[in-house]
């Protein structure tokens, strides 16, 4: 990983976006959204995490090997979450 040196201007802009999104997500928690708080919060979280990953962690200029590790971890996380949760959601025999 020795891509181009990210200018400080980029970091400041990303930081401003992250702070703005944080204020939005906290504001949304004051609305009466009932069960939708988690969904909205996690979606905003995904955007924030992508900004951190792409710019602060330099994924934008990273090697294919680094991308492979990132995508593999997300893929495994997907298997872990989707298969486990779908099992629990479709199982009504055991009370837990």
């Amino acid at each position, binding site marked *: *990983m020795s891509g181009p040196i990210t200018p400080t201007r980029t970091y*400041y802009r990303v930081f401003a976006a992250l702070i703005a999104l944080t204020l939005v*997500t906290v*504001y949304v*928690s*004051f609305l009466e959204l009932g069960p939708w708080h988690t969904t909205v*919060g996690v979606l905003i979280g995904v955007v924030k995490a992508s900004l*951190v990953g792409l710019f602060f962690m330099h994924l934008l200029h990273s090697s294919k090997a680094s991308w492979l590790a990132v995508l593999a971890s997300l893929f495994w996380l997907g298997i872990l979450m989707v298969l486990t*949760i779908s099992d629990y959601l479709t199982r009504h025999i055991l009370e837990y």
Partner: protein
Amino acid sequence: MSTNHAVLAHHFENLEQQRETAAFGMWIFLATEVLIFGAIFTCYAIYRLRYPLDFEAASARLNVLIGSINTIVLLSSSLTMALSVHATRVGRQQMLLTCLLLTILLGATFLGLKVVEYYQDYKEKLVPVLAFDPDEWTQIEGVEAPVQPQRVQLMLVFYYIMTGLHAAHMIVGMGLLIWLVIEARRGLLTPVRYMPVEVIGLYWHFVDIVWIFLLPLLYLTGTHQAPPWLPIPPIHF
């Protein structure tokens, strides 16, 4: 600046390959971290789906002010960490030291606020077993179905395990940052040898990303009482 320090290890072809390997190694480690936290997040999701009202009720009682301030503190520390990488690569030693020390300071602020928050939780009887009042949870305004105290405690246990594991990662990260400060003072972090800053930065940003998801899952899952000066449109679901 030290120049007699061998920058290229003998088992690498060139600096480029050495840097690629360092970054790849950290990303592999972070993949295992994703699975550690992923398992806990999955567990949380299952119970969140099972006991939605209990989890929302417990979430509404958590300290959203300290949680939000800590988010901003942690994002700021990520900015100073990213600026440290920039400073190393352009060879600005003084800026590097300042940014590293600021990152440590912000990390310490985060942990300090966390301690204050845990103490507030204790005073508000939000600690299962140690300080918890089951009776206050059986009647809560605005919650349709009765909330069960033992399920509220389950949510709180998730809160302590997730924030606790995250705090442990912060402490490790601060230890690594202190090592970076020592390296920087010895003049060993240069535009040629900048990967230690880059790789520890990757770890620090990852811990930040974990917190980015902890904020909505733990603190913002319930509806909070808005401060009186904040205009809130009347939306109801």
